[in-house]
């Protein structure tokens, strides 16, 4: 079958300042209808040295740059833990509606009922999907949500009268988990997963004590496996007065199948830019709402959205609140997109999405398990992890396979994470990839493994088709050049 990656005409493009010509301007200056008001020269600065470009200079520059990028709209990103599903275009239409885009956050409740209602309803929808009574939409990203959740756990323990010093973190955890715990002053205690790739109650019980604030769990975990013992683990932690933090990054596997709130999790964050289809934007903006059990409601950040009869308002009179995580209410523009997505899918649609995401991942696992080494040969959820063991004899690594995949027209899977697997190659197709595209991906991986045996040098210098070949990252870190 023909692979998607091919050659084509793209353009070289210099840095903006190299195109700058004295006197050019690319913006329309508004006409002035008021007198000039002078400012004290002592306060006035030199004009900032920004480039001077015409409008076409700017357009051509950024169009050319865009053509160097891979994106979901051009090809598949089977990135484990990232849930790179299709970003629906109707969501952009909704976010761009003047009533939303032009809304000032301080216009007052009376003039912001549409925004407030959307936020309130989104909280309800996310609460229903996850099985929790309350949600805050304020955190601006997943890691921000984690920090928010950990701050609430910290505040809850403070209110109990005794702060604890440790938090249990599985070895499969995303790096943001221990980092977020550290920000609250907690020392992370590493918990090893068992031979089946999931947490064992005995291991947790051994580590859990009354100086441990709780545990941070991802379910399904970052190996793509369902933490079967989750209920028991939650009980063990609760029994010693701890709380359970749930990292909901992998929610895409289980919508309508499980509800984290029913399993004993006390506080959970979601990634709207993963499960709920909002665009990644080359690195953000995301959004990381946090859902909580009843006991943690008082600690939620302010302001909160309240509904009384048919009127919505912000309330700030929450004395036990941890405080504020964002200047205003969070990433409202991202909330609009996620809200539109949930309304477009409905409950049956979301469950179907999870089922198909898990089907796609298992199909890939079964199709590639004789090609690549599969450390956990058991049913997976929405992602599966391989290693580079089967190509090591050719001195080929996960990195080489990843780079060669680019030539075939696929973004590589997540590589070298999670750390519990050596040289991990973690594949998450998501439900929006068709069988046809997945079959092409499977063929590409098989072809690359064949190339590893017959022509390893080819892989070592891959990729060949993108605008640049492998970049010197060592030099970039040794002598950082962070501006032009």
């Amino acid at each position, binding site marked *: 079958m023909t692979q998607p990656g091919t050659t084509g005409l793209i353009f070289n493009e210099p*840095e903006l300042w190299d195109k700058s010509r004295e006197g050019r301007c*690319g913006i329309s*200056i*508004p006409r002035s209808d*008021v007198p000039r008001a002078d*400012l004290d020269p002592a306060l*006035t*600065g030199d*004009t*900032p040295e*920004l*480039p001077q470009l015409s409008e076409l200079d700017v*357009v051509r520059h950024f*169009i050319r*740059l865009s053509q160097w*990028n891979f994106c979901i709209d051009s090809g598949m990103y089977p990135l484990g833990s990232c849930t790179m599903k299709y970003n629906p275009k*109707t969501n952009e239409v909704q*976010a761009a*509606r003047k009533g*939303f885009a*032009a*809304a000032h*956050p301080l216009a007052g409740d009376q003039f912001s009922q549409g925004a407030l209602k959307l936020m309130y309803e989104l909280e309800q929808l996310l609460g229903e999907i996850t099985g929790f009574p309350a949600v805050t939409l304020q955190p*601006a*990203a997943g*890691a921000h949500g984690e920090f928010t959740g950990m*701050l609430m756990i910290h505040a809850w323990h403070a209110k109990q009268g005794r702060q604890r010093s440790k938090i249990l973190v599985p070895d499969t955890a*995303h*790096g943001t988990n221990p*980092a977020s715990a*550290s920000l609250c002053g907690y020392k992370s205690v590493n918990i090893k997963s068992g031979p089946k790739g999931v947490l064992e109650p005995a291991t947790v019980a051994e580590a859990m004590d009354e100086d441990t604030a709780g545990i941070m769990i991802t379910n399904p975990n970052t190996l793509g496996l*369902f933490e*079967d013992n989750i209920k028991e683990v939650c009980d063990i932690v609760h029994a010693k007065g701890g709380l359970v933090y749930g990292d909901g990054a992998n929610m895409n596997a289980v919508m309508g*199948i499980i509800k984290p709130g029913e399993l004993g999790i006390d506080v959970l964050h979601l990634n709207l830019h993963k499960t709920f289809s909002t*665009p990644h*934007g*080359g*690195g953000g*903006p995301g959004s990381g709402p946090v859902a909580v059990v009843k006991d943690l409601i008082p600690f939620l950040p302010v302001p909160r959205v309240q509904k009384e009869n048919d009127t919505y308002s912000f309330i700030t009179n929450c004395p036990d609140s941890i405080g504020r995580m964002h*200047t*205003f209410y969070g990433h409202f523009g991202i909330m609009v997109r996620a809200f539109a997505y949930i*309304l477009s*899918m*409905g409950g049956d649609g979301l469950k179907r*999405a999870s089922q198909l995401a898990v*089907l796609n991942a298992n199909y890939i696992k079964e*199709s590639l398990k004789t090609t690549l080494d599969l450390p956990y040969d*058991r*049913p997976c959820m929405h992602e599966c992890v391989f290693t580079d063991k089967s190509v090591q004899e050719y001195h080929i690594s996960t990195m080489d396979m990843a*780079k060669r995949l680019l030539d075939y027209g696929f*973004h590589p899977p997540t590589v070298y994470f999670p750390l519990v697997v050596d040289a991990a190659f973690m594949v998450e197709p998501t439900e929006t990839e068709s*069988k046809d595209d997945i079959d092409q991906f499977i063929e590409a991986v098989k072809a690359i493994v064949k190339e590893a045996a017959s022509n390893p040098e080819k892989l070592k210098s891959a*990729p060949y088709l*993108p*605008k640049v*070949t492998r*970049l010197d990252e060592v030099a970039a*870190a040794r002598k*950082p050049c*962070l501006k032009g």
Partner: protein
Amino acid sequence: MRYLPHTRQDIDQMLAVTGHADLNQLFETIPDSAKTKTGLNLPDALSEWDLNAEMDKLASQNAACRSYTCLMGAGSYDHHIPAIVPYLVSRSEFMTAYTPYQPEVSQGTLQGIYEFQTMVTALLGMDIATASHYDGGTALAECALIALRKSKSANKIAVSNLIHPSHRHIMKTYLGPSGYEMVDIPADKNGLTDLVALKSMDDIAGVAVQSPNFFGNIEDLGSFKACADEKNCLLITSFTEALAHGLLKSPGRFGADLVAGEGQSLGMSKSFGGPGLGILAGTQSMMRNLPGRFVGKTVDSKGRRGYVLTLATREQHIRREKASSNICSNNGLNAMTAAIYMAAAGKNGIREIARLNHDKAVYLKNMLVGAGLQSVYSGAFFNEFVLKAPAGFANKRREIAEKYNLFAGVPLEPFYPDMADHYLFCATETVSRQAMDLLAKEVKA
């Protein structure tokens, strides 16, 4: 459903490979006790056309759905957004791209962010800038943590009372569990941060001042730098209105060590307060202390210019619990937006637009003072200023909003309880003389 491509045939063929009888069996490894019995009780899926109708209805319940005159600032600013900005930023290749961890296929994003970093340093007069943060408030909180961690002895940071109240609230929240203390530097009678009060403070890791401050007044950053030097601590400056730097002396000129601010004014819509753009810049010596992503320039194996994310050893995915911050995503697409805006406006455009902002605000202040509102501070301001209104103005303000869709300032009492009847007005390049004259007429009446 159009986002789910699987046909019945696809599913059957795939289940034959996985060895499951049906889709439900895919979840047989989940204990029955863990599976939900309640299902997803959500509204039925809407067609694209019904979704449009629903969202149109919701959006029309915001005053912003119709033309409105926004004389509010306080951290969210109404500016003209050139057509090319949303056009370029909505390119699939920018919008639906992942974080540039595979640089060979992400050079568009990487060069764009590198250019953003560069232009931010030009705007602020600083040596380095990060690839961005969530917003001005969280960037400022990160700066406070940097200063506090760097200090060998001090566990306090002096924070101006005239920094945006929500920014201070975020700082307090971030510092909560750490045991670090925030010491308030009060405002003086001129609506500026009280330098005398600061001079009497000891054992501080840093001084944080916003300019223009929350009241719109321009602070004397030079004096704050001198004071910070005397106390051997860092000077952190912040801003909420990025366009001010088109006109005012930059924080870099004053010797700021760290600068944090909100970049929403650089081409982003207000969008009910988010997503905006956190900007963080520092001196060269701060490079390894700054949190978040950096794009650096390098070469490929053929010696060609290229860009990569760099200095990742500071970040969470490498250092985990020892990371300087837990931050993972930046506000990437908004940093691209700012890059496009700064490229379009350029050196001359940004100066002109900044001057227009100032001209409009001065005009508005004069008109409103002429109409009977009271000037509170006499010092220089950029595009925001404080006026005191007679009791009952709140009703008039609401009536003007209902009648003309004109929002006259932000009431200050919720932020500063002893400032009842005080309002923070803002006028940007978007406000017409006509609208300002109308407001003055209504106020006078």
